[in-house]
């Protein structure tokens, strides 16, 4: 830290009323990832086991609890979800009861996996979305943050998914080198064969590895009540994330003990005080993690 405010829980923040469980996020592989992006807001990587992988049974229990609480949609995230040895089992289990989004770097989606995803998507009543991270339209933009050679591999995966009739959402983190023109990015994605291109830009989150790459947050939030429409639209007003270590407020705070709010999904359905500096990214910058 360089004089900036660390995430903390000893200050109050604006309160957020929990409305209902809309989005159930599941940290299926914990912090295990096949790459170690320099701007990762957790500290995921090939040796990162600080948040353990969940077992298939734990994931299925989360899905069952979510269904009992009336969840609307499921998100599988990590780490890299395609590292989970029983991903096929839990994807099928999720799609049997709700729409599913998988947040992925795309690197493990080979021909067989793309074919399988297309089959699962076609067989399910509910939508299957894949959110593939690509942080630039060139290797020169993407690779400095996601790792050497990743651009070419991600682009191949996107084209592969398109050939199988899937329409992934490309998520782009607005780091320093990225060309963040929506129109240009849409054209670029269309050029990969994706007929209905979807691009979602995300601001940098100044926590996790990104905090070490650049800097953390300056504390600028106060306790002033949020506008009702802002409060209602925050992920933490209608979403929770289940990990192998308990239930947390939202996907960006799973490395922070103070954000662990319950052992159970049912117990996590309660109001919050936004006492973490990173909350300003949602409150002030308008980050919304939904697909």
């Amino acid at each position, binding site marked *: 830290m360089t004089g900036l405010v660390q995430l903390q829980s000893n200050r109050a923040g604006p309160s957020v009323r929990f409305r209902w469980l809309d989005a159930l996020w599941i940290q299926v592989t914990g912090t295990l990832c096949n790459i170690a992006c320099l701007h990762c807001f957790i500290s995921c990587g090939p040796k990162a086991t600080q948040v353990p992988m969940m077992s298939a049974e734990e994931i299925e229990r989360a899905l069952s609890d979510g269904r009992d609480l009336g969840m609307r*949609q499921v998100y599988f995230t990590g780490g890299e979800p395609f590292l989970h040895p029983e991903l096929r089992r839990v994807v099928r289990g999720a799609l049997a009861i*709700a729409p599913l989004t998988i947040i992925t770097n795309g690197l493990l989606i080979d021909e067989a996996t793309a074919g399988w995803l297309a089959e699962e*998507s076609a067989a399910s009543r509910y*939508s299957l979305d894949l959110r593939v991270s690509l942080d630039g339209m060139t290797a020169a933009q993407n690779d400095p943050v996601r790792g050497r050679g990743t651009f070419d591999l991600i682009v191949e995966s996107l084209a592969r998914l398109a050939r199988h009739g899937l*329409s992934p959402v490309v998520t782009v983190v607005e780091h320093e080198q990225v060309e963040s023109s929506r129109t240009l990015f849409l054209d670029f994605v269309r050029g990969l064969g994706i007929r*209905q291109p979807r691009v979602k830009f995300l601001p940098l989150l100044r926590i996790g590895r990104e905090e070490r790459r650049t800097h953390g947050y300056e504390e600028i939030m106060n306790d002033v009540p949020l506008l009702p429409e802002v409060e209602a639209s925050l992920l933490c007003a209608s979403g929770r994330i289940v990990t192998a270590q308990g239930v947390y407020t939202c996907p960006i705070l799973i490395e922070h003990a103070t954000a662990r709010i319950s052992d159970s999904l049912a117990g996590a359905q309660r109001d919050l005080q936004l006492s973490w500096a990173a909350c300003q990214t949602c409150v002030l910058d308008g980050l919304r993690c939904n697909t």
Partner: protein
Amino acid sequence: MRAAFFGGVYSNWLALEQALRDARQRGAEAIYCLGDLGAFGPHPDRSIELLREGGVPTVQGNYDDSVGNDRPDCGCGYTDPRDNHYARISYAYTQEKTSSAHKPWLATLPHKLAFENAGLRYSMVHGSPRQQNEFLWETASPDHLLERLCGDADVLLCTHTGLHWQRTLPSGKRVVNVGALGRPANDGRTCVWYAFLDTEAEEPFAFIPVSYDHQRLAREMREEKLPDEFVETVLTGWWTTCLEVLPAKERLKGRF
């Protein structure tokens, strides 16, 4: 009993006029509108007047709430900047062109209407019973959620998505998204849709396509300087805007 249910009119007064005629010809004893009278199309007062003059019981949509109460935006519930860009254009036009005489009526429309027939309870909302602008898409609305949203109702009718669908739930309850009269259903056809209930029919709910003078609507939209993208949708049946909110399966069915 025979009844008609109209969703999302979006100022398409020509389709509304035709749908009213069609529903009456089919013997509808009751006609309901599930809200969002303005947006997208031209001359918002014309649709409002057709509904008021026809005595059509109408649920308040998010657009009606916003226009009626002069709120800063339409409250459609979009999160993508591209969706919001077109929503702002549409809302600014509709807000300006809606007569102040109609705004108090829009502001005080009910959030919910209900009736009973043959022991079944029918509940009508705009988005969902818990949130006026909640999108209930066919491929993004799990059975367990819909069971919960039905509450005491045996049949829940909604709109807001612009796409019609229906499902019988494991409990036997039914959810019907009645679709929209305002713009085509992103299927390459220029007709628009409403839902028709005939309790004597084997399948009680049918979706009725409505053909109307869409060329005239397009002309009026151009005269009002509404975006070319909106006009293209009317002429082709494919959505060109407000697409980012669509779930994957619904998006893949469209052209864009």
